[in-house]
C-alpha cells in the first residue's frame, strides 16, 4: 500500500488498480467528499482501490513549496505494485491532482486520467473570502463594527501591493485568530478551543497558498472537468480563481447542481459513467 500517513483508504484495493482523490478533507464541512462519491459509484468502481489524500502536518511558518504536498503524498509506499488509473481533485485539490497525475505518468509509464470537480486555483481573493465566511458563520457574535473591521482588514491585507500569497495567508490567519479570540471569549470558550479552530484554519490556508505555486495547466488540459452551477455563476461573475482555472480545462461537463452536492449527486455519477472510463 502507498504511504499510510499520506493517504486514507476509502475503498481497499482488491486488484492493482487505484483511484486517487485529492481534497482537503476537513471533517465537518458541508461539501460532499470523495467518500460520498465512492458510495454513489458503488459497483462501477468496485474493481479499483480508492485512496484520498491526508494533509501533511505543516505550518504556514514552514512556508511549504507547492511540491511539498505532492512529495509528501508520493514519497513512500509500494507504488510500483499498483497502477493509478485516475487522479481526481475537488476544488483547489484539482491543482494538486494535476501535478500528481503528471508525476505518476512519468513514474508508471501510463498517464492516469485526470478528473477535476470544480477545479479552482488559489488567489488572494480566495483567502479574503474565508474571513467573510467566518464572519457569516459567527453571526451575531460580532458587532457590526467588529465585522466591518475584519472585512476591511482582510481587504487591506490582500490589497497590500505585491504581497505574496504565503505572506497574505500568514496575516489572514492572524486576523482570524484575532476575531476568533473575540468570539470565543464572548461565548465563554477556552483559549485552547480557539487554538484548535485557528490551527485548523491555518492548515487550510497553508493548503491553499502552497497550491498557488504549482502550474497545473498541463494536467488541467488533459482533464475531464465536471463543474457545478455555482461554478458557472462564479465564472460569469468573473471570479479569477474560477476563470483562470476554467480557461485551462480540457473536456468540460457542466451540471445543474450546487457545488456542495457535486460529489454526491446522481447527475455526477451519470456523467462519470458516460464519460470517464478507466
Amino acid at each position, binding site marked *: 500500500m502507498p504511504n499510510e500517513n499520506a493517504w486514507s483508504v476509502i475503498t481497499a484495493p482488491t486488484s492493482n488498480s487505484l483511484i486517487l482523490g485529492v481534497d482537503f478533507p476537513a471533517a465537518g464541512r458541508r461539501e460532499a467528499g470523495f467518500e460520498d462519491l465512492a458510495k454513489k459509484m458503488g*459497483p462501477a468502481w468496485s474493481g479499483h482501490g480508492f485512496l484520498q489524500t491526508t494533509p501533511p502536518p505543516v505550518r504556514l511558518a514552514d512556508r511549504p513549496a507547492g511540491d511539498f504536498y505532492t512529495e509528501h503524498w508520493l514519497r513512500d509506499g509500494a507504488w510500483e505494485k499498483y497502477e493509478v488509473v485516475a487522479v481526481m481533485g475537488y476544488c483547489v485539490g484539482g491543482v494538486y491532482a494535476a501535478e500528481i497525475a503528471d508525476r505518476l505518468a512519468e513514474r508508471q509509464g501510463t498517464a492516469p486520467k485526470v478528473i477535476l470537480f470544480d477545479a479552482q486555483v488559489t488567489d488572494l481573493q480566495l483567502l479574503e473570502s474565508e474571513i467573510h465566511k467566518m464572519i457569516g458563520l459567527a453571526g451575531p457574535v460580532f458587532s457590526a463594527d467588529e465585522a466591518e473591521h475584519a472585512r476591511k482588514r482582510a481587504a487591506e491585507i490582500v490589497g497590500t501591493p505585491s504581497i505574496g500569497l504565503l505572506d497574505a495567508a500568514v496575516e489572514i490567519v492572524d486576523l482570524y485568530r484575532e476575531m476568533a479570540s473575540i468570539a470565543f471569549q464572548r461565548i465563554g470558550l477556552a483559549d485552547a478551543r480557539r487554538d484548535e479552530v485557528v490551527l485548523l484554519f491555518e492548515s487550510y490556508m497553508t493548503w491553499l497558498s502552497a497550491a498557488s505555486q504549482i502550474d497545473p495547466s498541463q494536467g488541467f488540459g488533459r482533464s475531464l472537468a465536471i463543474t457545478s452551477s455555482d461554478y458557472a455563476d462564479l465564472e460569469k461573475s468573473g471570479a479569477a480563481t474560477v476563470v483562470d482555472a476554467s480557461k485551462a480545462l480540457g473536456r468540460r461537463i457542466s451540471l445543474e447542481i450546487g457545488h456542495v452536492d457535486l460529489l454526491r449527486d446522481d447527475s455526477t455519477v451519470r456523467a462519470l459513467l458516460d464519460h470517464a472510463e478507466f
Partner: protein
Amino acid sequence: MNSDLGAVRPPEPDTAKTATSNTATSNSAPANAATTNKEKALWLLEQLVPETGVNNLGLALQVSGRLRPDVLRAALAIVVGRFEVLRTVFRTTGADLVKKVVPAGEFAVEIEPLDLSGDSLERDLTAFADRSFRLDGRPLVRVGLAAHPDGDILCVAVHHLVFDMVSVALFLQAFIPVYDAIAAGRPVPAQATAPASALAEPEPKPADLAYWRETLEGFEPGGLDLWCGTPRGRQPMLTGESASRALGAEAQQAVVQLQRAVRAPLGAVMLAAYAALLASHGAGPDLVVGSPVNVRGANTAAIGYHVNVVPIRIRVDFAEGFRALARRARDAFLGAMAHADTSVDELTGELPGIGTSWQTQLFRHLFNFLPEAPAGELSIDGMAARVLTVENPHSKFDLELVGSPSRAEVVFRYSETLARADVEAMLGRFEALLVAAAQDPDRPLGGTVGWSDADRRAVDRANGTAAPAAHPTVPAAFRSWVEKAPEAPAVADDGHTVTYRQVDGTATAVRTLLAGAGVRAGDVVAIAVPRGEVAAAVLGVWRAGAVCLPLDAGHDPSWLTRQLTHSRAKAVLTGTGVQLPADIGLPPVLPLDGASVPGPATPDEAVEPTAPACVIHTCGDDGQPVSTVLSHAGIAGTVGHFAAELGVGPGTGVLALAAPATFDALFDVFLALSAGGRSVVAPDEARTGAAALRAATLREAAERHDATVVAVPPGTPARILEGLPGLTVLARGDELSPETAERLLAAGCRLHSGFGTGRTTGWAVSGRVATPDDVGRGRPIANTRAFVAAPDGRELPIGVHGELCLAGPGLALSDPDDPAFPADERHGRHHRTGELARWRPDGTIEWLGRIDRQVVTGDGPVDLGHVEAVLLGRPGVTAAAALAVPQPGGEHTVVAFAETAADADVDADGLTPLAVPGQVVRLADLPRTPDGRPDRDALLRLARKALEQGTGRPDPAADDALVRDLVEIWRQLLSTEATAHTDFFDSGGHSLLAAVLAQKVEELTGTSLELGDVFKHPTPAALAARLRA
C-alpha cells in the same frame, strides 16, 4: 427508529402534583416558585419547536401621529410596575420550570426599534412578535416602536405564560390613560398605578377532576386525525395559516332557525356543526374538541394566562340527525364550562395513552367561538389609534374554528398538515352542512354531511365518462380490421411477421379444432402458447364461444394441475415448442399446429358482450387458484379506451412484454389488434434477466419492428425502457417512482400512468404524465366511474382519503355475495378495490397505495407500495417487496427486499424520512409463489430473521442517558430536532459551533475533548462511544 426523541414527555409525577402558583409579592429576595401543569404544558410545547414564538401573543397600535419614546418608556415602567404578572419571569432548571416575580425597581422593558423593512407591515409585526423568549429569567415582554408615514406603530409581544387574548384589551385599558397623563403633564390617576398582584389560579377542585376523569374515560386520541392533508411527522413544525369564509344569507338564516329548532345556544349549534364536519373528514367519531374558556371569574381585570382549554367530548353518529347531535354538543359544552376552573392539564400523565407525545394529544381541533370584545374608538394623547392584527404564524392544532356571535364570518386556522385547498373546501362544506341541517334537523347526517355543491359538481364532472364503445367485443374489432386490411401485419415475432388474414385463418382453424374436441360455448379452454401465437389461439377460443384461461408452461407442474382442475378446462391448446409435463392429469391437449389442417370451417358462436371472455388465476393464501373472470365488453372497452389514449391505430407497433398467464398479456396483444396495429413480441430475455440485458433486448426488438407503444407489466421496472426514446409508455402509477418518470420523460418518452386492480380489466384510471408529479393520478377511463368511500360506505368529497371504488363494464364478473363487489342504489354494482385514493380538485383521482399496505411505524404512516416503487427505480434492482413486521407495542418495522444481481445501490435516498425501511435486504432472487408473485410468507420469515440479526433492532443508543444528553446539546446548538444519529455537520454545524459543542460536552461529562474528536465522531451516539472509550 424507535427512539422516543421528540416525544413530549409528561412531567414527572412528583412535579405534576405540585401546588399551584404562589408568586411572592414581597419585594425582597423573591424566591423561585413552582409552576402549574398548565404552564409546564406551554413550555413542553415550546420544546417541540425551539427558537420560535409559538407561545407568543402580539398586539399593535397605529396612531395618527408621533409617539414619544420618553413618555412610552415612563408609561410602560408604570404599567409593568403595577402588574406583577408582567414582571414574572420563568427559568428552566433541569427538567423543571420555575418562576419568580422581579421587583418593580429591578425590572425594565427596553423599547426596541421596530424593524419595518420587510415586504409587508403584517409580516414585520409577526416577525417581531414571533421572536422567541428565552425561559432563563429574562422578561417575557418586548416592546417595539417604529416611525411610519401613516403614523407611528407600537408593537408589544408577550409570552402566553403571562398573557392571553383577553389580556390584550386589559393591557390597553391600563396603558393608555397612563401614557395620556404623562404626555399631558398631568398626574397619573391613582387607580392606574394601584398594584395588581398576579392572580393565582385556584387549586384543582376534586369535583372538577372527577368530572374530567369521567368524561374522558376510555377516550383514545389515535382517531383524531383527519383523512386529508399529509401525515403528521414525529416532529411537528406547528406552522399555521388561516382561511375564512363569510357565511351566506341562507346559512345565517339556518343558524338562527337551528337555535330554535334544536333548543341550543348559538355556540352549541356551531360546535355541533364543527364536530359533524370533523367527523365527516375522518376524525372520531368519538371526538374531543378543545375550547378555550376565560377563567378570571370575578377578577375581570386580571392580566395573565387565565384561559383554560377545556376538552369537549362529543360522539358523532351519522345515522342520527343534527338535532340529536346538537343536543349532545350542548350538554357537553355546558358541562365543560361548569368545570373549566380546573385545567385538564392537571390530569396529564394520569389519562392512559394521552399526552405522552405529540402524537397523542388529547385534542387536535379547537373550537374558539367567543364573544368579541367591542373594539371601540381608541385614542392616545389626543391621536386616533387603531389596533392592528398581529398574526401568530403557528398553529398548535390541526384545525381551529375561530368565530364570534357578532360576525357572520368563520375562520379556520390550520396547521401545516392541511393544505389551503383542503381547508377552503371544508369551510364550504361547513356552510352547506348548516343549510342542510336547517332544512331537516332530523334527517340522518350521513346523507349530506361533508359535501358542498362544488364537491358534487367536480366529482360528477370527473365521472362523466360515458362514451360509445368503438367495438362491442374484441373479436368484432379484429374482424373489422381483417375486412379492411387483410394483408396488414398483425403480429411480429423475432423477424417473422404474420398478417391479419393469417391470424384470422389460424383462429378459424383453432375454432374448428375445438369444435372437433367437443368444446361448447361457455367451456373453459386453457392456452399454453408462445406469445407470438396468443392472438390466434385466444381469438379461436372466443369464436368457439369458450372462455380462455392463459397458462404459463414454465410454471410449476403442480400449479398447472391445480389451475386445470380448478377451472375444469375442457381442453388445452399448446403452441409451437410448448411441452406440458405429461404427468399433471391433463384434459385433452390440442397442439396448435394441428389446427392448420385444411377442412370445412365451423361457424363462429355468437359472442355476447356481457359473456365471460377469460379467466385469470392468481395464487390464493391456501395455494389454490383464485379466479377472476372478465367479460368481452370489459376487455373491448379497455383496449378501445387505451388505443385512443395512447394513439394506437393502423400500423402502430405495440410491444407485448407481459408475462404469459396474466391479463396483461392479452391486453398487450389486443391493444394492437383491436385497433389495426401490430403486436410486436418482446423476446423472453426482455422480461427476465439482468436489467441491462432486458433493456438492450427490448431496444433491439422495438427498433427492428418499429414498436412505439408499450404497457409496462406489473412488477417490471420501467427503467428498462430508458433506452427507448420517443416511446409511448403506459406504466402502473403505483409502481412508477417520480425519479424513473423523470428519466423517461427526459429520454423523450410520452408517458401515461394508470391504475387498476387484479379484479378489473387491468386498468380503470389513467392519465398523461407531463411532469413527474403527475405520476399516480388519473381520470376514470371511458364508461368507468370512480368514487372514494369511507369505511362505513359514505362517499367522500375532494381531498379526503378513502377506499377507491370503481363501477363500469371493466369489473370482473363475480358472485352476487362477493364482498368486494357490493351494489347500492346510488352506484349500482361496484368494486371496493382495497386501494387508498382521494379526489383532487382538478377531478383526477390520486391513488395512494393499498389500504392493507398502509402501516404505522414508530415514525408515522408508511405506504409499502411507495417503498417498493422507489427501490424498483434503483439501477440493478429487478424486483422489490416491502413488508411490515409487527413489533411489540402494536407498531411495525418496515423491511424491504431488493432483488438484485449486483451490489446495487439500494439505500434509502428518495424516500421521505417516514418511509425509510428499518432494513433493506438484498436477495439474488425473491422467493415467489407459483404464479410468480413475491411469496410474502417466505419474505416475512426472512424479514424477522433479518431484524433479529441486523440493524433493524430498536436502537439501543436512543435509550442511553449520555446519548440523550448529547442529543439535547445537538438540539440546542443546531436549533433543530436531533436524534442519536444526527450528523452535527450535515445539520448545519460548523467548526466554530463544534468548538462550542466540545466545550459543552466537557462541562457535561468532565472529559476533555479535542475538536478533532467532534469531527471524527459527529453524531451523539458516536461521540458517546468516544467519551466512554
